[in-house]
């Protein structure tokens, strides 16, 4: 039987988490901690679990990562901490994500409030976009005593946490809980407010000491041959619709073709199967030896019963018939299906924000600055990996940079004017 769309895999119990923590070698100068992009310090929190101190473990996670419960679930750990884990030398890495999930679930069950708003320092910042990067910036700045306003285009906060990653991997309750923490810390979120349309950058700059743009790549790319085809839907459009309805959508096809070979394509294909769509075929551009989706996602997709065909590109479309050609061998196939879902990447919409985005969907330089010293960028539009944990890292780093800039100029102003 296929697993349901809304069911998350079960987590550890008190006994089993200790068994897993007991597998940890408690390494000196632990490689896992060094490999975490956000410095969540897994070796430290696993050690706390091993010594029966789950609350201390929760503090370590929360103080280093405003989205600890989310990273616990969606982090591609195989690329980061678990790739570095010493235990791999014996058998297989410690399930760091699983332990982190246990600890953050405990944190929630015990109603712990670890982060505290800093004493007001009289400064204000604005954040454009409430995805993971924006949320981390808000958290760091609030703990430092800044007043924080977040402007969000959508009806709800969270970016792809809310409108992308499927329920079975990241329950919406968890996302809401994490966002509530940040709102309780003092973040003021303005929903349904597109910066560049409903409110302009000039106004934000005038009312704040700094503005950080964290708009992510929130729109789907569409290949020209699929434009204006009523059988076609974009991956993120589809995933957002399903997540909002908690899987209760009525216009499901009997069969579907998914185009793309990344994690987003895997999410779409798996979601379709979990919603009981009978035949789901995923057509991937990459061949398996160069596959983009993570091993974990690929495995889950296969287990869900998706047919994955690697190495094919779409060459022609006729209504609900798509023709694909293999990239290297002389082979062609045409598939007729009720629905075609495109998971061929996301693009940035930075209209009227005054920043340049290149064809890699990011700013054309490293770092977080822009031509305007008061304006910063972070999250997926800054260079670096495009994952939630990197959004957290980039959020922490840009916050430190802004703080330095504002405190530096604050000191200068004090020297000159001597008022305030």
């Amino acid at each position, binding site marked *: 039987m296929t697993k349901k769309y809304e069911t998350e895999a079960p987590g550890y*119990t008190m006994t*089993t988490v200790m068994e897993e923590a*007991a597998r940890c070698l408690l390494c000196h100068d632990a490689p896992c901690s060094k490999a975490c992009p956000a410095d969540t310090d897994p070796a430290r929190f696993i050690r706390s679990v091993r*010594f*029966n101190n789950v*609350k201390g473990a929760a503090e370590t996670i929360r103080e280093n990562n405003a989205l600890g419960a989310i990273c616990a679930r969606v982090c591609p750990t195989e690329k980061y901490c678990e790739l570095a884990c010493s235990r791999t030398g014996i058998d297989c890495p410690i399930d760091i994500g699983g332990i982190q999930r246990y600890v953050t679930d405990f944190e929630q*069950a015990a109603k712990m409030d670890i982060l505290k708003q800093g004493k007001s320092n009289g400064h204000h910042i604005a954040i454009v976009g409430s995805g993971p990067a924006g949320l981390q910036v808000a958290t760091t700045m609030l703990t430092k005593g800044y007043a924080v306003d977040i402007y969000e285009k959508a009806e709800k906060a969270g970016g792809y946490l809310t409108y992308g990653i499927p329920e079975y991997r990241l329950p919406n309750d968890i996302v809401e809980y994490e966002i509530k923490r940040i709102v309780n810390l003092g973040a003021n979120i303005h929903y349904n407010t597109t910066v560049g349309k409903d409110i302009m950058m000039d106004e934000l700059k005038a009312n704040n000491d700094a503005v950080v743009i964290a708009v992510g790549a929130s729109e789907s790319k569409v290949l020209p041959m699929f434009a204006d085809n009523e059988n076609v839907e974009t991956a993120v459009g589809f995933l957002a619709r399903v997540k909002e309805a908690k899987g209760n959508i009525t216009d499901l096809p009997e069969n579907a073709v998914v185009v793309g070979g990344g994690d987003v394509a895997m999410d779409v294909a798996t979601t379709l199967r979990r919603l009981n769509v009978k035949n789901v075929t995923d057509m991937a551009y990459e061949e398996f030896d160069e596959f983009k989706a993570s091993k974990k996602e690929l495995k889950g997709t296969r287990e869900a019963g998706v047919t994955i065909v690697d190495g094919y590109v779409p060459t022609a479309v006729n209504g609900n018939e798509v023709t694909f050609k293999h990239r290297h061998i002389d082979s062609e196939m045409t598939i007729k299906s009720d629905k075609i879902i495109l998971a061929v990447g996301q693009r940035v919409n930075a209209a009227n924000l005054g920043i340049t985005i290149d064809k890699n969907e990011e700013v054309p330089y490293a770092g977080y600055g822009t031509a305007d010293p008061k304006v910063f960028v972070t999250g997926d539009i800054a260079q670096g990996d495009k994952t939630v944990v990197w959004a957290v890292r980039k959020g922490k780093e840009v916050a430190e940079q802004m703080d330095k800039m504002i405190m530096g100029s604050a000191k200068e102003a004090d020297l000159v004017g001597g008022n305030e």
Partner: protein
Amino acid sequence: MIKKDLSVDFLGVHFENPFLLSSSPVGNCYEMCAKAFDEGWAGVAFKTIGPKHFKVDEVSPRFDELTKEGTPFVGFKNMEQIAEHSLEDNLHDLKKLKENYPTKIIIASIMGTNEQDWEELAQLVTEAKADMIEMNLSCPQMTSHEMGSDVGTNPELVKKYCAAVRRGTDLPILAKMTPNITDMVPAAKASLDGGADGIATINTVKSIANLDIDRKTALPTVDGKGSISGFSGKAVKPIALRFIQQLREAAGMEQLPISGIGGIETWQDAAEFLLLGATTLQVTTSVMQYGYRIVEDMKNGLMHYMEEQGVDHLSDIIGVANKSIVPVESLNRDYKVYPKIDWDKCIGCGRCYISCFDGAHQAIQWNEEARRPTVDTDKCVGCHLCNLVCPVGAISTGEVVMKPGREGNPEDIKVESPRLTHF
């Protein structure tokens, strides 16, 4: 991170927190203690210093461990005696520690073979500016029978040597007791009569942890032979707690100042010793296994416990459990409580069924198809073995019933322990 005041006052000395290294290799020299202080320990009972004429001569190897399933160091056996460094080096280190770490507490552990030794050692460590003296009356593997637990089990000698140390110092004195005795009270009383101010306990328990079943002798084997020697670590915690409770139950010793030792590894262990009346806590084995860093989670975890208990000072929890530990004949035997099985949590492993059949009263019925257990209340005696073996916490305390012919209202009976309900 949570911040709470963990400081305690013990025999007139202020400790920034109750956690001390106990006298052993973990506090063998200046560098070790300095590193431990930097990582958060409040003080050290420095490795026992002996008289110049006693030559320490150790075996190799000298340790063994008891394991269970995958768990190492359930208990730890050692064959070490007292400090291997020279008397001069030890006194020099004590002095330098106090100079460089004035707020940390230096306890000098000493051991002599006669009154003169004890008095002289007391003078020397007092001159070296130690804050407190601990008399080692308890090492069970000394090569001289004038020393160690052979002395600590003899109240007359204990009193005599405590008086000798009292003559040699005006510092507070702790007498470190051996658990290799049926009743610790006479030895403890003798030490107080002689001039000690408080008790440190326990030292190691005489043991054979494992045999080498090929060579047919005790481990560790030394040139083909083994010996009985001291056992420590988690496995001895129950023994330590029992002795501490018995000391505090003895008439006139209800407020006895105690430095608790034996198997402390987590903040929970620490809380248990405090609740039974220990004011400071000493640790060796878990430091040998994991390093000084374990104090971080002991301190932080203890702060969270204080927060949960709504107390601001550790003095508010010290000894509060003594009164609710009563003789077995005073317990309420009029009721039993049935286990309650939560089928939603149950994963159908059948461990409860096996344990109840093979180790209790055959009171669990097993549905083979559904793979779910049910309790037969006619047979169940309410022992709760099933509760302890369930790996997912699906079994808890359920309905309370009075035994036939007994008076009482089941609703008034306290059966739930919040700490036992699994998360």
